[in-house]
């Protein structure tokens, strides 16, 4: 099935492939620290060099996330974030940007509470391109994937260091958009991914799929982002960005005036790391 949504993600990776570049994927939590600041951050990401945006859907119990992203989830919820407002952010963003793909990332319960079919339809209408739902493994994914397929949206499949070859085959059969390789067995923002083992894993995954492979978890610095960009099709950075945001909150947990600029500075550095990775490797 072709649709505008599928095209945004497909077009993005196709362009980068033509340029010989890897994608810079940045994660922020919707509504963190508040709705308006979050919208400014979201709108600033493409200018800072971000190719694909992962927008976290806040949840009270983000068990796959470490302290930084958990705190971001709770801050956003405290300041009024919810699923409707998350889609509002995407709709606002799309007024000025109809090319940068947005993937919603989070946990299944808020989607289930909204109604999976209705949520997928509303997300598609808001300009969302796909979903990553960390507590929907292959065994449970149909509940979201069936309505998403109907709407032409991607549900990104995840592979991890514990996914063996036999399982990889079934996980990747029917995968759409791109494959997300979780570089470490653990939670977001913990141990650093080591580029050599990521290289081996990516090579293993490529035997099972032609889709672009994004790598995330444990990537914090421009150097690490660059090292991953040399071996994978996309580098995902989340906790480091969210931590930078947190460092720019005042005592009341509100955004300081320089917050957006500070975060964009880090994102730009990460994005140039990714951008220069392959040209540097070629020299």
């Amino acid at each position: 099935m072709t649709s505008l949504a599928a095209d945004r993600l497909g077009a993005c990776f196709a362009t980068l492939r033509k340029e010989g570049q890897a994608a810079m994927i940045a994660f922020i939590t919707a509504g963190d620290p508040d709705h308006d600041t979050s919208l400014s951050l979201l709108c600033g990401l493409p200018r800072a060099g971000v190719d694909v945006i992962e927008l976290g859907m806040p949840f009270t119990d983000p068990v796959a996330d470490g302290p930084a992203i958990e705190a971001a989830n709770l801050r956003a919820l405290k300041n009024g974030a919810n699923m409707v407002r998350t889609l509002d952010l995407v709709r606002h963003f799309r007024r000025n940007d109809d090319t940068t793909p947005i993937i919603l990332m989070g946990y299944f319960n808020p989607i289930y509470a909204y109604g999976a079919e209705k949520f997928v339809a509303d997300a598609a209408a808001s300009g969302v391109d796909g979903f990553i739902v960390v507590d929907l493994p292959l065994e449970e994914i149909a509940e979201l994937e069936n309505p998403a397929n109907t709407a032409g949206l991607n549900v990104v499949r995840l592979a991890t260091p514990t996914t063996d070859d036999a399982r990889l085959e079934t996980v990747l059969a029917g995968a759409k958009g791109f494959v997300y390789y979780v570089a470490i067995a653990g939670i977001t923002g913990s141990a650093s991914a080591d580029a050599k083992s990521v290289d081996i894993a990516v090579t293993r995954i490529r035997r099972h799929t032609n889709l672009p492979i994004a790598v995330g978890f444990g990537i914090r610095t421009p150097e690490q982002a660059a090292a991953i960009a040399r071996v994978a099709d996309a580098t995902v950075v989340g906790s480091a960005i969210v931590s930078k945001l947190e460092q720019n909150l005042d005592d009341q947990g509100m955004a300081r005036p320089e917050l957006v600029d500070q975060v964009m500075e880090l994102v730009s550095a990460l994005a140039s790391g990714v951008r220069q990775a392959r040209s540097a490797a070629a020299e």
Partner: protein
Amino acid sequence: MNASRPNTFVDGPDVDGHFGIYGGRYVAETLMPLVLELERVYAEVREDREFWREFDDYLAHYVGRPSPLYHAEPLSDRLGGAKIYFKRDELNHTGAHKINNCIGQIMLALRMGKKRIIAETGAGQHGVATATVAARFGLPCVIYMGAKDIERQKPNVFRMRLLGAEIVTVTSGSETLKDAMNEALRDWVANVEDTFYIIGTAAGPHPYPRLVRDFQSVIGRETRAQMNEREGRLPDSLVACIGGGSNAIGLFHPFLDDQTIDIYGVEAAGRGLESGAHAASLTAGRPGVLHGNRTYLLQNEDGQIKEAHSISAGLDYPGIGPEHSWLYDTGRVKYVTATDNEALSAFQLCCKTEGIIPALEPAHALAFVIRHAPTLPKDHLLVMNMCGRGDKDIFTVADALGVTL
């Protein structure tokens, strides 16, 4: 609700771990291979007589089973209705039913070659039971416990340390059982190769709800045999408190297909259902997905999990085991509630009339018995699961009664 009444209530879960629409395996991909491996090993174990012989042997000589089925005559006389029996699981080693499950799970851990045990705990009973079996079987053990619960359950924290467990204080979220479970899941995903997670209740990803139920069903099987011996027939009704619901499913499961038996699960109504400060997931929640399974949850309209409240730390959880959700929808088990105050009154009545200090968890079951038994005839046989003893709760009760110790 939407589930039709099946011909049998004992053949669940299905191959994918579902009881009706509940259960399942809602975990990160990193954990899936291990969850599937556990399922494979458990399927093997179910057919392995030697495993169950060894399990029964530990239950007999280490835990102290069978636990007595005791006729609570003074209480029965006082209430003037049903003939009340207590299934005395509070007499087990470590003082609650939790140990039954821990023995079974650590045997699985050893069989799978795991080198390290983790667990979550609320009241500390499951933490103590886990630390106990970890000590007995020689595996290092890390217990996750909310900061609030550490504060209100100090004796159990010290017990766990004496038993050699490392206690990790959880300061995220509401700092109670739900958050302790989040942290245990985070540990598990980072140490999946060598670590076995001993889940304390009949919840979590498949096959946990099933295997916890199977290990706890010794309670109901003993009750059947003991009641037949004492009264020459089966009981007329069963009552148990419900947090996650492991003591309840353990008592109920062997009786689910005896459809003339009335079965009651008692949820914690905290300060009253209308106050919003309670832990009654079935009575006041909606189906959702948390901690590996689909089940009834306390949540807001956006699917955000609400904090639970109960005077009993063991019932203070916003979810419930998936099999209970299914038994609720099908109507096989009736779920009722008891408030903090009702539980406190029942606690005191039990001390004074029976000479038994109950845990605050079964005090909720007893509160319902106090309401319900007088409406029943004298030849009605009622069994209540006295699933834990109250030594751990004396500080909480003293505080609630305004007594300084």
